[in-house]
């Protein structure tokens, strides 16, 4: 190929034309870029400004401090203590599994921690929000984590306030506890108006006072307007609304009395409720056995929880408010007063007690409780006082038959049986104050005269909780006038109301009350009193009534027990109601000792311990 001659002029013009076209294209493309910038920066400016602010400005909720709970003498029952928790920001962890493995080599992390961590991680959260793995780190844990920090990217140790119950298991059922908000709580909050108040709060009252007064204790969260960077780290605080701490509660509960009851119960199952007669304030409310509420705050490990849950002793059950027992003979003072009020008996009327009772015209013998030991009954001239002092069943069989169900029911109702009268006790049961309709409905059977006879001695269909017995005893000690039974004395210093929508007991004279007080005093001090063992060595006088409830029970779960243990659990429950001092009642008490057999021997000393503690406290206060 011969080398062609280039025509420089022609080529130059060609390239010049091409460059000109290119220049036009370049200007067009530059215009596109400028147009784009104008579009974004002018026409879409507001949208992107808002988006940029949303990026950098966050509302960080500031959790309020939960309200403190004090007993009536100002001792802290629930407080907030600083603690450290371990949290992970999954977005910043290169390999989550490796990090978790590494962490479990450094500190003790169990299956439960991991399980709840997984659950929290998968539920909704903002990106870069830390997920709690373990709470209440020990100093040792913190030190170990600190040393290993360089190898633990995305792992944080955070300081927070955690709930603490200094008296531990003494107040478990009554005070309750807070725990991490779970799905069920979530539903509860979602229905509540105050769901917005739970931002930034991980804990909620689960049972007891913590649950009942949740709204007061919670407080209102504050907000911090903060500028954060892309990693969620706070760069500066732009503004702040301080959180409003929860209200503090002062309870009627008295740690000294609670401790006295706790100590007196020793390791027995049962319940104690003590109420201040003047105010209706619940001074002590104990259910045994009990559990340390502090375990739940950090998240109770399955290794501790499962044995407790499966235990025959059912430590989680609040026997004081939810244990429905036959009140047995502790019902006699109330039935007796009802009998007098409706005119079915008088204090002067006597009966002959051959040791059993027969409904007129019927063969069946209703035996007195003494039948097992002696066959002669309580004598030929038993009056109402004797029937209370000696707990004469035959007198009450007769009285019940005469009174009829309706009279008994309405007076028991007036004393608060079969319903909830306590204002702020968590989830109490109503017990059963039976009626004809009730039996028809639940058993499909008519009410038989024999049912009335059983009811007369607190057996059969009637059940009551220790709380109800204590309330009824309080009303008795107040000579029939009602006061609201409640745990909270004041909320942030504002006293709680003591009114209650219950009519006072009608149809009884001062003499009737005096005589019943006297009869109940003689239960403890009389020669034939069923609780005379408890009366020794007292500087004051108490009035009481024993009861022995047979365990007809469904002893399910006891099949595997050895015969001795099985026999132990079939023993009767011992009950005792009392108030003291007789001449000026201050405290009313109900005690039940499961399988305690004798109200006088097992339950009455517990009541005495409660009175001693209360009166000792009063003396100290007056000195």
């Amino acid at each position, binding site marked *: 190929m011969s080398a*062609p*001659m*280039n*025509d*420089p002029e*022609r*080529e*130059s013009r*060609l*390239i*010049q034309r*091409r*460059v000109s076209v*290119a*220049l036009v294209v*370049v*200007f067009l*493309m*530059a215009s*596109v*870029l*400028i147009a*784009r*910038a*104008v579009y*974004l*920066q*002018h026409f*879409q*400016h507001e*949208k*992107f*400004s808002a*988006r*940029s*602010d949303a*990026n*950098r400005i966050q509302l960080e909720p500031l959790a309020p401090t939960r309200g403190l709970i004090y007993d009536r003498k100002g001792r802290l029952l629930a407080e907030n203590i600083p603690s450290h928790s371990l949290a992970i920001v999954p977005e910043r962890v290169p390999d989550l599994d490796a990090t978790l493995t590494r962490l479990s080599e450094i500190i003790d992390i169990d299956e439960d921690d991991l399980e709840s961590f997984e659950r929290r991680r998968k539920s909704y959260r903002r*990106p870069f929000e830390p997920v709690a793995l373990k709470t209440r780190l020990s100093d040792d844990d913190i030190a170990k984590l600190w040393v290993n920090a360089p190898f633990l990217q995305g792992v944080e140790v955070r300081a927070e306030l955690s709930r603490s119950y200094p008296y531990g298991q003494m107040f478990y059922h009554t005070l309750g506890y807070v725990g991490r908000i779970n799905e069920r709580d979530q539903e509860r909050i979602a229905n509540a108006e105050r769901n917005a108040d739970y931002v930034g709060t991980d804990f909620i009252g689960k049972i007891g006072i913590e649950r009942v007064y949740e709204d007061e204790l919670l407080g209102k969260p504050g907000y911090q307007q903060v*500028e*954060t*960077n*892309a*990693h969620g780290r706070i*760069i500066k605080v732009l503004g702040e609304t301080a959180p409003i701490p929860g209200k503090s509660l002062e309870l009627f509960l008295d740690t000294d009395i609670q401790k006295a009851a706790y100590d007196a119960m020793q390791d027995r199952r049962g319940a104690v409720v003590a109420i201040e007669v003047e105010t209706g304030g619940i001074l002590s409310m104990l259910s045994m056995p009990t559990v340390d509420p502090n375990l739940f705050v950090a998240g109770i490990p399955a290794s501790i929880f499962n044995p407790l849950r499966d235990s025959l002793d059912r430590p989680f059950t609040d026997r004081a408010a939810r244990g429905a027992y036959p009140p047995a003979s502790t019902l006699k003072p109330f039935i007796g007063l009802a009998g007098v009020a409706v005119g079915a008996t008088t204090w002067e009327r006597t009966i002959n007690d051959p040791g059993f009772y027969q409904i007129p015209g019927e063969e069946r013998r209703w035996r007195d409780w003494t039948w097992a030991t002696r066959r002669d009954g309580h004598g030929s001239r038993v009056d109402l006082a004797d029937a209370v002092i000696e707990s004469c069943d035959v007198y009450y069989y007769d009285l019940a038959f005469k009174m009829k169900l309706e009279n008994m029911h309405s007076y028991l109702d007036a004393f608060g049986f079969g319903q909830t009268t306590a204002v702020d006790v968590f989830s109490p049961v109503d017990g059963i104050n039976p009626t004809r309709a009730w039996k028809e409905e639940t058993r499909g059977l008519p009410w038989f005269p024999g049912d009335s006879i059983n009811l007369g001695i607190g057996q059969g269909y009637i059940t009551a909780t220790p709380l109800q017995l204590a309330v009824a005893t309080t009303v008795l000690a107040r000579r029939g006038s009602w006061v609201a039974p409640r745990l909270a004395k004041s909320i942030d210093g504002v006293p709680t109301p003591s009114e209650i929508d219950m009519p006072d007991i009608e149809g009884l004279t001062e003499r009737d009350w005096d005589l019943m007080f006297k009869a109940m005093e003689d239960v403890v001090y009389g020669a034939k009193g069923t609780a005379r063992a408890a009366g020794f060595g007292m500087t004051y006088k108490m009035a009481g009534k024993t009861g022995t409830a047979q365990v007809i029970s469904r002893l399910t779960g006891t099949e595997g027990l050895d015969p001795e243990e099985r026999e132990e659990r079939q023993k009767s429950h011992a009950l005792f109601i009392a108030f003291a001092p007789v001449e000026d009642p201050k405290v009313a008490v109900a005690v039940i000792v499961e399988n305690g057999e004798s109200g006088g021997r097992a339950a009455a000393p517990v009541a005495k311990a409660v009175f001693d503690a209360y009166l000792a406290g009063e003396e100290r206060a007056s000195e």
Partner: protein
Amino acid sequence: MHQSDFSRQLNDRLSGAPVVRQRLIKVDWLLMFLIAMLCGYGLFILYSASGQSFFHVSRQAVRMAVGFAGILVLAQFDPRTYKRWGWLGYIAGVVLLAMVPFMGISVNGSQRWIELAGFRFQPSEIMKLGTPLMIAAFLTRKELPPSFMNIFGALVLVAIPTLLIQQQPDLGTSLLIAASGIFVIYLAGMSWWLIAGFAGLAAAAMPIMWLFVMREYQKQRVLTLFNPESDPLGSGWNIIQSMTAIGSGGLDGKGYMLGTQSQLDFLPESRTDFIFAVLAEELGLTGVVILMILYLLIVLRGFYIAVHGRDSFGRLLAGALTLTFFIYVFVNIGMVSGILPVVGVPLPMVSYGGTAMVTLMLGFGLMMSVSNHR
């Protein structure tokens, strides 16, 4: 003045007379001034984008100094030297590219780097200059406009490095290198019919590219462009954040070093590929327009040099390099402002990073050589 310089030099040469006023070094002062302005503007933005990092700014300044030295050196040689020896660069680049799959170093899943005599570099950088040099030399062997066969030959020469780089994979760079070669062919006078034909062919090839050539992550980037909200925390994040930065900057910006998107790390790659968003956020539309004016002035000067080149080789080279330079600008800003898919192309003279910038400056050196030898 230029004309007189030119004729004087021509006369000197023709007459064989001694050069009377031989300047020590030859410089296109206007181009130099514009580049320096752009570099200064770049450093100014980098200082903010790097979080007031003196380290980054001084390092970048040193690289710029190296680049300026490169410009001055390359500007002294006659374009004929490049026409004669340019193919060497092209061949060396192709050989090195061919070696990448065997001895390349993998970074982030692509093999782009190679290490020679202790130096780590991307052979594709050589091709950014090597390709237009080669094509310009190849086409100017013959009369312009080139024959169909020559165009075909040139396209083959373009295709070789393009495909090799596409394999790394580095779609962005391969397309830009293809563009730099094609610009030469276009400037050389490839007929409009052929251009239309190839454009149609390219359009037809798009689905094939999509199905057989493009990798999954490349497709994802294209999809993200059309709907960034589809994956706001994943591949859409970059583009959402950069558009937010640009848009929130408004007409006069949030103020120097006060861009919340950039300073609070919401903007990814704010020092490098996405630095335009920092500028747009902090200096607003004003800053954007200033930048565009600087770029366009450089383009104008480049085209002026191209038009006034002494021979067709110089003209093609200067014109193609100028267009390539502008394509970098367009692709980068287009990507950052959300009208082009995300490809790893830095903003010329502003993005932090040495290799690409030095290559660009060497390109200016070639343009200046054309400018100096009219």
